[in-house]
């Protein structure tokens, strides 16, 4: 199965401004497990790319937050998740039929509980 994880940066990743609870190590592990990973943030695309360089990881995508739908179109997968700390993250996920975790939930790495051979996307919860 292909499962895509979209990380917001500010307030979500530890390298964000402000820092969030999702560490570089958590992102690296998600990558190693086989998730399709990338960022979807209000940060400039060039800054997002620099952050991935700093994490020494190659993302499948970097995108502006309002372009989450484009990420879906360009990255075929069986399930899609976005995580972030703002209403705008939630709404972007909802509008594009992504599953969603708030940043503090994402810091618990819920994706590590997934069965990578048999997973059905968890519907987004009401805000």
């Amino acid at each position: 199965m292909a499962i895509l994880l979209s990380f917001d940066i500010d307030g979500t990743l530890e390298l964000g401004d402000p820092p969030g609870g999702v560490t570089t190590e958590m992102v690296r592990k998600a990558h190693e497990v086989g998730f399709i990973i990338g960022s979807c943030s209000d940060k400039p695309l060039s800054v997002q790319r620099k952050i991935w360089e700093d994490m020494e990881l190659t993302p499948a995508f970097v995108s502006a937050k309002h372009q989450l739908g484009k990420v879906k179109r360009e990255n075929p997968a069986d399930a899609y998740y976005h995580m972030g700390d703002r209403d705008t993250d939630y709404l972007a996920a909802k509008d594009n039929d992504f599953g969603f975790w708030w940043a503090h939930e994402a810091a618990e790495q819920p994706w590590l509980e997934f069965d990578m051979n048999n997973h059905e996307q968890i519907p987004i919860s009401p805000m």
Partner: protein
Amino acid sequence: MAREVNWERNHDPVGIWNGRGKAVLIGRGHSPTDRRWDGETLEKSLGAYMMIAVQNALDDVGIGLDDVDGIIGSAGGQGNGAPLSDVWGPRPYFDAPYDSEDGLTHVTGQWLRQQMGFKNLRYINNHGDPVWNLIGQAAQAIADGRAETVVVTYPNGNLPGRYHQDPSNEARGPAVWPNTWGWGLSGQGFTFNQYCQKYGTNHDRMAPFVVQERKNGLLWEHSYYAQHEPGEFTEEDYLNGRMIARDLSIFDCDRPVLAAAAYVMTTAAKAQDMKQKPVYILDHTESQFTPRSLVQTIDDTEEWTDIQAQRSYNGSGLKPEDIDVFAPYDGFAVFTQYYIEAFGWRGVKRGEAHDFYAGDISLKGPNPLNSGGGNMGTGRMRTVFITDPLEQLQGRAGDRQITTKAEVAVTHGVLPITAGTVVMSTSPD
């Protein structure tokens, strides 16, 4: 609107300023630039940073505390002297004996006097206006003999949490229209949208301007971006910015930061004994307007900026072609074109600014607009609008030094609805 000691020059015809050439802007000092204050670390508070900036400004011109007899400042970089914490980051006082935010999220002249040990102050004013008005007020105070050597203080900060959130759950009166869509932003986009419709242009044509400002800002050592995010900001970045209101991108908005700056202003006579070259204030003018309807329109905007630009030309006796260094405010990038067109800098007429942006506005080119980078290139400090023209005229802007003539500078801000313009020159005449 005239206030306080009626120092503002805002009634037409203003006439040539009677203080012309009497007051000098000569030195500057800056603190480190941070993204925000954590609310706890005292050595990184606005008060601590303001003291660093004041000391750096005094060192810049080679004077001591005892040489200063005036402090004019904005306690928190907010209008009417409001503390930063009152505006969008309400916070409780520290435990007793603290009973004030003075020295933490805002900084008064009285606090600085006590903390730094100024002994000879005879004029303190925490008027609280934007930095252009403060420079104008200090120039007027010096010209009027209220003080001879003034430190102008401008702390501007940021706290954790959402910037400029309106804590109210209600929107009454005229606020019913814009506030349901967020603080002030929809109005900026609305006016810009009208501008685009009126002149057949579009938001994407802003890109060359914002990208150039970010380039310029990376060359200013006090810029937030130079210190913390030194990568290149590209046209791709700008064009992919999320729209947070119609025709207003997230990259049209300055990034809130925490920093302090101080300026030394003095008399033309005393300036001769200081370390830096004097830059003479030729004129200051101010304005404040009221929308004719519930929201500001493009017609309001063009009328107001025309009035203020003409007021400045009348007060200084200059013509557009006399301006070498032009620094129009850009806290929202989408309103800078109103100023360029009102002042007619480099011959730009109404509706032509985006064509101007598409030409050569590079730092070393013929039209080095906002050579300091503006707020877009430095963060929401506003002080680059004073420091950069000062340094350009003093010939010490380093890598930012423009290659065209730098003898007369005009800096202008903050909003079309309320503005101050300062005219500086290497010559008092």
